[in-house]
């Protein structure tokens, strides 16, 4: 009789402990999620507001193994005008996410433009004009084998407000501060590891 009562007590205590643990895990998860969401949203919101769209012109000088300017910064909605010069050999200018692949020949003011949507002969132009519609960072890369370091010849085309960067930084900070909160409340996921170590 006493044994049965003792076993029942033990089972109840175990159940209470499990419920407490599960509750702790749920609270930890909620804290972490809230921290991530809060700081991620904060990062998203602190991105600068865009000025009125402008026309931006750049002359891109290609040489083995880099471009000048190495970084082109514009804002979403800007009209971008690009002219190209090659100082040594034939280079390419493949702009990620923009269906634009340009062949730049030395000593020539015109370039050949290849677009996957336009089959057939490439377009020959002096200047490329397009609107920066998508925000974010897009790399431009050499698409014509130009030498040993050809695969690493690239530049950055950054379209503001580029909210992915501050949002991601916000998420990283959210992880850090969420971790602090969990540590202070002593209910964090690290507890599990501690138990593993002690086992």
């Amino acid at each position: 009789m006493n044994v049965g009562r003792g076993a029942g007590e033990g089972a109840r205590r175990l159940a209470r402990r499990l419920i407490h643990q599960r509750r702790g895990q749920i609270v930890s998860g909620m804290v972490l999620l809230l921290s991530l969401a809060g700081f991620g949203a904060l990062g998203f919101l602190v991105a600068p507001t865009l000025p009125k769209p402008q026309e931006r012109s750049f002359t891109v000088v290609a040489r083995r193994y880099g471009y000048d300017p190495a970084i082109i910064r514009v804002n979403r909605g800007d009209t971008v005008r690009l002219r190209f010069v090659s100082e040594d050999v034939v280079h390419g200018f493949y702009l990620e996410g923009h269906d634009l692949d340009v062949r730049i020949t030395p000593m020539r003011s015109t370039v050949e433009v290849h677009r996957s949507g336009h089959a057939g002969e490439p377009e020959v132009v002096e200047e490329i004009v397009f609107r920066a519609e998508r925000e974010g960072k897009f790399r431009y890369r050499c698409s014509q084998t130009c030498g040993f370091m050809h695969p690493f010849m690239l530049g950055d085309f950054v379209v503001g407000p580029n909210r992915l960067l501050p949002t991601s930084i916000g998420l990283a900070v959210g992880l850090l501060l969420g971790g602090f909160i969990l540590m202070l409340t002593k209910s964090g996921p690290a507890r599990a590891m501690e138990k593993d170590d002690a086992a």
Partner: protein
Amino acid sequence: MFVQAKGIRALAGTSPAVATLAPRGPATAGRIDLLQAVPGLRWLLTRRWFQFAMILPNLVLFLLFLMAGTFGSPVGNRNIIIIFVWILWWFLLISVLVPFLSRAWCIVCPFPFFGEWLQRRALVDVRAVDPKKGKGGPGTIIGRNRYFGWNLRWPKSLTNIWLQNIGFLGLCTFSALFLTRPIVSVGILGALFVIGTVLAVLYRQRAFCNYVCPVSGFLGLYAMASTIEVRSKDADVCAKCKDKGCLAGGERGWGCPWLMYPSKMDRNNYCGLCMECLKTCPYANMTVNLRPFCADTRLKGYDEAWKAFIMLTLALAYSVIYLGPWGFLKDWANIAEKADFTGFLIYAASLWILALLAFPGLYYVAVWLGRRLAGADIAPAKEVFLSFVYPLVPLGLLAWVAFSLPLVLVNGSYILMVVSDPFGWGWDLFGTAQIPWTPVIPDWTPYLQVPLLLVGLAYGLKTGYGHARRLFTARGQPVRAFAPVSVLLTAITVLFLELYLG
């Protein structure tokens, strides 16, 4: 019992890990025994031909790479050695094999193949011997196996991974050469074959893999995070075992070629997954477990800590040089073509100072600050430092995956090209040689890199907090102790985010 306890201790004395093994048995929490869960897996892994069958195709492939690098096109993206080794192999190694399959590469690695063959004079069979009766005869008896070659012991002062650290950093300083020139890659891969073979003739078992191979060093470090492990099932069975076949070998297999004591293994670092211990254990007490990510959390020496510093520094430096827009940095690294010796010296010196002094120094300051903030000096300084360096393992691994991802997505189409034309001679074996260069979702890469880096940071913070709780017990102490390091880890992540997205 063939081998006396003294003999076992003598064997164990050569291991880099045995001396530091914790007395407790391996943790089993959250593990799934794959040999029980997957039908036929135990049968497969305990076949004597298993490892030979795994290495052979890879050996043939690497010999093809060496031929292509020597006789094929000097243009990197037209030669299979560059595309397969530095784009495909590297990506698979760092993004798939290491995180999910630990040191599975070491099962198929061809570099020690010839050396091990010379050592054993057997490709599949075992040379078992009763050490009491079988004295004399050719070769040397170690444990219950007979080996050939000189079988010297590796110098005790070098039983660490410092050689691998320096070798890897040195090699990576010249990455612009071997990443772009097939003949330089031939030199490096060929040298690994030669050094692996020579060292196997001179020193016992896998001295090359344990202490010299530059790839092995970072594989060991990042294998700590991996989701599989080879471990004993029941520590009591091992404690009562008098056979010690896993260490001494026997008729069923060789003693651990990695000079580990498998029954007491509690980390993945120096286990090459050769599966010999599965074969030699008389109680079938060794198994392969599926386990949570980042289950091994303890670094056991400064050599391992510095490996973590070197790896993260290289991930950062490569992200700047190979994914960054700054042409002058590429020119500095590209010494053979640009011959800018001053630039190269600045680049090389910066890399070495950052990896060996500046970054570890900054980290040391953060750890020291944390100990000051915590107030009490309970835990030994070395243990705190090594424990707080561990978070660089998940962070570094995920940073390497984030760095490697765009390389394979952008240059992956070259793989199809060189499959059809491995030497760059104009062949078209499978009709894919003329496939144009086609980057795959390059504009979406940042959306993949962000979660990778955040997962790395999350695991870094989680494991670091775990160590802080273990080392600092008073209320509020763990948070204060780990705070500076956690801020530094977050700052490093932000730096990567800035490089990839900004």
